[in-house]
């Protein structure tokens, strides 16, 4: 009984980590930059949805607010790449990393100014409802998180393998120069990857906020998601999700069965172990070029 509930809540948390990690990996693969503001993108995505759907703000329907929030976050991601990062080409990785850290701070304080620093909860149609059978109590929100993540992953998989734009995104990330030679507009594609990762962050944020409260510092969750991405191998999309699930599962079990405090350490301990024994991550996709 206990076990099933721990697994479900662990998976639900893990899905949120995994989706943020997915955002990290998408951008890393496409542009070789790490977006340290990914967690804050998630937080802003949640707040945008709060702003659209909660009664004290615009009070739109929850089901309308989701696509709108995804669209707004996609636009934000595109705009950041187009307006800022594109002018940074040729600069060192470090300056881009610092830029994204700065962006994270800006987003955090902007969110605090707009929506206050107090925790807010997202009003969802299924808030607080439970699913009970055989003595097991599962929150609908947790089930919803898992289902949505599975559907989103399937959609992303189809997008990347079946559509021309998706294949072009892969092509541009594997060999930017060759993509350039083939007439693929690499810069625009990169902006679209930022848009995609913004939309994914919005979904992660909405899921996160639907099972608890959101406040402007929730973006710091991004650090845990970063660990998830590194465990998965940073270049691999399935790796990011699985890394997220591993961390998500380890947390509730270590806090239930382990001594106090272990659950906070466990994710990073796993990261350390992975980095020592499999430095490329669990699902590293390294490809040596033939000469």
């Amino acid at each position: 009984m206990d076990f099933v509930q721990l697994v479900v809540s662990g998976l639900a948390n893990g899905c949120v980590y995994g989706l943020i990690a997915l955002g990290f990996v998408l951008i890393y693969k496409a542009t070789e930059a790490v977006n340290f503001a990914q967690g804050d993108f998630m937080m802003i995505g949640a707040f945008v949805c709060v702003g659209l759907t909660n009664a004290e703000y615009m009070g739109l329907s929850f089901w309308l607010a989701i696509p709108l929030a995804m669209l707004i976050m996609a636009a934000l991601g595109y705009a950041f790449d187009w307006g800022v990062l594109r002018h940074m080409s040729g600069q060192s990785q470090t300056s881009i990393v610092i830029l994204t850290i700065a962006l994270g701070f800006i987003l955090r304080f902007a969110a605090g100014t707009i929506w206050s620093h107090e925790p807010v909860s997202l009003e969802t149609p299924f808030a607080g409802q439970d699913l009970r059978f055989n003595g097991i109590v599962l929150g609908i929100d947790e089930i919803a998180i898992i289902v949505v993540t599975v559907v989103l992953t399937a959609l992303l998989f189809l997008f990347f393998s079946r559509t021309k734009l998706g294949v072009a995104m892969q092509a541009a990330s594997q060999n930017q120069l060759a993509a350039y030679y083939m007439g693929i507009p690499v810069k625009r594609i990169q902006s679209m990857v930022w848009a995609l990762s913004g939309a994914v962050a919005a979904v992660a944020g909405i899921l996160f906020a639907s099972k608890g409260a959101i406040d402007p510092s929730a973006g710091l969750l991004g650090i845990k998601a970063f660990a998830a991405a590194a465990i998965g191998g940073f270049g691999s999309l399935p790796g990011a999700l699985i890394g997220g699930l591993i961390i998500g599962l380890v947390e509730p079990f270590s806090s239930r069965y382990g001594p106090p405090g272990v659950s906070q350490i466990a994710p990073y301990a796993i990261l350390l172990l992975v980095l020592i024994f499999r430095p490329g991550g669990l699902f590293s996709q390294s490809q040596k070029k033939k000469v």
Partner: protein
Amino acid sequence: MSGADDVILRVDNLESYYGPIMAIRGVSLEVRKGQIVTVLGANGAGKTTLLKTISGVMDPEKGIVVLEGKEIQGSEPNEIVYKGMVHVPEGREIFPLLTVAENIAMGAYTRSDKAEIARDTEMVYSYFPILKERMAQAAGTLSGGQQQMLAIGRGLMARPHLMLLDEPSLGLSPLLTEEIFGIINRLNKEQSVTMMLVEQNAAVALSVADYGYVMELGRIVMADDAMTLASSKDVQEFYLGISEGENQRGQRRWKQRKTWR
């Protein structure tokens, strides 16, 4: 045969730099429709830089590039692909984790006519049957020669009027080189793709080319019909490795000056 209207590519007094280093020092050349034109030269002569500048990957400091009557210097490569010129880069720059079929499909990124693309895909497979066999395989698992075939096939998918080929023989066995050049020649004759071919392997390049340029230190130093070039003393000595007497070879290398210096 001559006449300004059959010139598909004209490069006039092109100069380009790597930082402060001038890599192309005022190159002018012409490629006529239907021809295979080769640019020969040793390592570091500036051949690859020349192609990159023509195809828009690098921007020239000075000079013009005219493709089918329109100036294109300084344009982005994706615009240039739309205008009918494709660059098959040196070293088989394929997409290693995509399948062979996806790689080929990416060559047609700038096109949207599905039926035509399907027909061209079949055309590419007919020239490179091995690619059809391997179409579901990740391109990074192909051998070097197959990757070169893939790079050329992918370039064809853009339906180019002019194809820039950078060292297609690089790292290939003599037998494979011959096979690839045979296909390049057939594509030129049967699909009427004009080719501009940059090579270190002068013998094989001159065997398929109609016209040739010799490049040294960023300049064109010789230009003539491929036949004439192949029989010229200088080209034979310095690019084809043919010398008059085996035993005096060492001495001759030191004594003979290139006539263009």
